[in-house]
C-alpha cells in the first residue's frame, strides 16, 4: 500500500517519541498548558474554560477520526467523504427524530446499522476495484465525488435551511470551575466508549486480527486465507458506523446544514496522521490534542486564526514524524 511505504523512510525518523508516546504527549501538553497559565498573560478562569471546552471538542474530533483512522490505515484510502458521511448520519438522526419522533440517542443507535450498510456499499461497489489496483488517486477522487454528491443530495432533500434537534438532557453544569454542557459531555463519553470498543474488537476478535493482518500486508493476508475484499468492506462499514455514532451524539449541539460536516474532514486527517494510521488510541489522543490546540490557541489568535496552528501542527507532523505518534515504524 502506498500509505505504508511512506512511513519512516529516509530522513524522517529523527524525532524520537520513544516507546511511551502517551507519556511524552501528556507531559508535553501539561507543560505547555502550565506555561500558558504561568506566563500566558491570560485570566486563569478563561484558560480553564478553554481547556475544558478544548477537551470536550477534542472528544468530538476523536469520534470522527476513529472511523477515518481505520479506513485510511487499513485501506490506504484518503476518504474525503468522511465529513459528508458525518453530515449524512446527522440527517438520518434528524429524520428519525422529526419523523417518528424518536429520542435522539435512540435514533443514533438506529443510525449505526444504516451507516454501516452504506459504508459497505461504498467500498464494495465504488472503491473495491480501485483499491485492489493500488492506485491512490482513484479512491481519493471517488470519495471526493461522493462528498459532493452526499452534500448536494442532502441539499436537494432537506434544503439549505439550518435544522436542529432537541435533547432530553438540556443545560449545563460546572466542572473544575468551567461550564460544560451535558450533551457535549455525553459525546465525550461516547468517544471514549467507541474507542474502547473498537480497540477490543481489533485486539481480541478474529475479525480484528484479520483487519490488522490486511493492514500490515494485504497480499500476505490473502495468502493465509483472509478474504481481503470482505475485510475492506467491513472496515469501511465500521468506519462509517463510528461516524454514525459521532453524528448522532453531535446532533443535539450542532446546527444542521448539508455542509456542516465538511470542516471535519480535514481536521480528521490532521488527527489521524498525528495519531498514526490505524491506531484508535492515537486518533483519540490526537483528537484531544487538536481540540486543545484549537481552543487554547484561540486565546491568542481569535476567530479562525487558531486553525492556522492546527495546520502548522499537521505540516510539522507530516514532515518530521509521518508515521504519527502511535504508528508502527
Amino acid at each position, binding site marked *: 500500500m502506498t500509505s505504508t511505504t511512506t512511513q519512516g523512510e529516509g530522513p524522517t525518523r529523527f524525532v524520537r517519541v520513544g516507546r511511551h508516546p502517551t507519556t511524552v504527549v501528556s507531559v508535553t501538553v501539561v507543560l505547555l498548558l502550565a506555561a500558558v497559565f504561568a506566563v500566558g498573560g491570560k485570566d486563569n478562569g478563561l484558560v480553564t474554560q478553554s481547556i475544558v471546552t478544548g477537551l470536550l471538542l477534542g472528544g468530538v474530533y476523536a469520534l470522527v477520526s476513529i472511523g477515518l483512522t481505520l479506513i485510511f490505515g487499513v485501506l490506504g484510502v484518503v476518504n474525503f467523504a468522511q465529513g459528508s458521511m458525518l453530515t449524512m448520519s446527522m440527517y438520518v438522526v434528524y429524520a428519525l427524530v422529526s419523523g417518528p419522533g424518536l429520542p435522539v440517542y435512540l435514533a443514533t443507535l438506529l443510525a449505526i446499522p444504516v451507516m454501516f450498510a452504506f459504508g459497505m456499499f461504498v467500498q464494495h461497489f465504488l472503491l473495491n476495484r480501485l483499491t485492489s489496483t493500488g492506485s491512490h488517486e*482513484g479512491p481519493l477522487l471517488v470519495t471526493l465525488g461522493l462528498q459532493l*454528491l452526499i452534500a448536494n443530495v442532502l441539499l436537494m432533500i432537506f434544503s439549505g435551511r439550518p435544522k436542529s434537534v432537541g435533547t432530553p438532557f438540556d443545560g449545563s453544569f460546572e466542572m473544575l470551575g468551567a461550564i460544560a454542557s451535558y450533551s457535549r459531555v455525553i459525546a465525550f463519553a461516547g468517544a471514549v466508549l467507541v474507542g474502547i470498543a473498537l480497540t477490543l474488537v481489533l485486539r481480541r476478535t478474529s475479525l480484528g486480527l484479520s483487519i490488522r493482518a490486511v493492514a500490515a500486508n494485504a497480499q500476505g493476508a490473502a495468502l493465509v486465507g483472509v478474504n481481503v475484499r470482505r475485510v475492506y468492506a467491513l472496515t469501511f462499514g465500521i468506519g462509517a458506523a463510528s461516524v454514525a455514532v459521532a453524528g448522532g451524539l453531535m446532533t443535539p449541539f450542532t446546527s444542521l446544514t448539508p455542509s456542516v460536516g465538511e470542516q471535519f474532514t480535514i481536521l480528521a486527517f490532521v488527527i489521524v*496522521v498525528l495519531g498514526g494510521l490505524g491506531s484508535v488510541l492515537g486518533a483519540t489522543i490526537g483528537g484531544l490534542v487538536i481540540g486543545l490546540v484549537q481552543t487554547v490557541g484561540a486565546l491568542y489568535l481569535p476567530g479562525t486564526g487558531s486553525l492556522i496552528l492546527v495546520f502548522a501542527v499537521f505540516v510539522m507532523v507530516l514532515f518530521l514524524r509521518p508515521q504519527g505518534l502511535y504508528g508502527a515504524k
Partner: protein
Amino acid sequence: MTDTTARPAAAHELPAADDPRLKDTWARRQLLVLVAGVAVLSTLPLFLGEQAQSVAIRTLIFAIMAVGWNLMSGFGGMFSFGHAAFFGIGAYTGAYLLVDHGISPWISMVVAAVLSAAVGVAIAYLCLRYKLAGSYFALATFAFAQMFLLIVQNVDALHKTEGFNVEILPSDSWSMLQFQQGDPLYFWIPLAILAAAVLVSILYVRSRAGQYAQAVRDDEVAASSLGINTMRARLIAVALSCGVTAVAGVYYTQYYFFVGPEQAFGSAVSVEAIVPAVIGGIGTIWGPVIGAMVVGPLSELVATVLRNPPGFLSFLQGTSGLDVAVYATLLIVIVIVMPKGIFGTIRDRWRS
C-alpha cells in the same frame, strides 16, 4: 546491434534517417490542432449571447487551471490537492497590486506567475525532501492551501474576509484590461492565455525537462540511476504548473471585479482544477481542455433543464444542488469506468 554489423548488406534495406516515416510529427500535429482549435473557438463570441459568453469564459478559466494542474499532477505525477493556493496567489496578487498600487494586471500576471512558482517550488521541495508521496503529498498540499486561506482571512492588508473590489473604469482600457461588459475581448484574452498554456504543455512534454519529469513519474529509482536529477525535474514541473494556474487567478479577479478568500483559496477551487483534468484525461495534452468543456457548461445546462423539466423529472423543480450532484456523479463514474478520462480512453481505442 551485432546483427547489423555482422550483415551490413541488410543495412540498406532499413529506412534511412531522413525517411519521412520516421520523422516525429507529434509536436507539429499538436500545434496544428491547437491553431485550428483556437481559430474555431475564437468565432464563438459571434454566436453566443451575453449569458452564454460568461459561461464560456468561466469554462476557459477552468481550462487554464486544469491545464496548469495537469503539468504537475499529470506529467509530473505529484497529485496536488491544493491548487487553490496557486490560483489564490494569482487572484490576490492581481487584486492587491491593482487596487492598492494601481499596477496593470498584465504586469501582475508575470509577478503572480513568478511568485506562485516560487511558493509552489518551496512547498514541493519540502514535501519531496521529506519523502511525502501519493496520498501524503495530496494531503500536504491540501493543508498548505487551507493555511493560506486562513492566513488571508486573518491579515488586515489583504482585507481579511472582505476581499478586494476592483474599481470599474469609465472607459475601455487595454492596459488595465477593462472593456465594455460583454465585450468579446473578455473571451479572446483567456482563450489566448489558454492557448499559451497548452503551447507550454506541448513544448514542455517534448522538452528534455518534461521527458525527465515523466521518467521520474514512471519510475523514480530507474530515472535517478540514469543520472536524472529527480528533484530538479519535479520542481520544474511544479514551477510551470503553479505559474500557469496563477495567471488564471489574475484573470479571474479582472473578469469578476471581485475576489474573496473563498473564491481564491477555498477547497472548491482545488476541486475545480482537478475535476476537468480527471474527466478529460490526466497526463494528456487535450484532456484538461476537453474536461473543462464538459464540466464548465454543465451547471448551466442542468439549470436550463430544471426551468422546464420533462415530466418524469418534475419533482426536482425548485431544488438546488442538482448541478453539483450531476457533476459529482459524472466524476465518480468516469474514475471507475474510464480511469484514463474521455480523451485518454478515446485515444487508446483509436491506437489499438
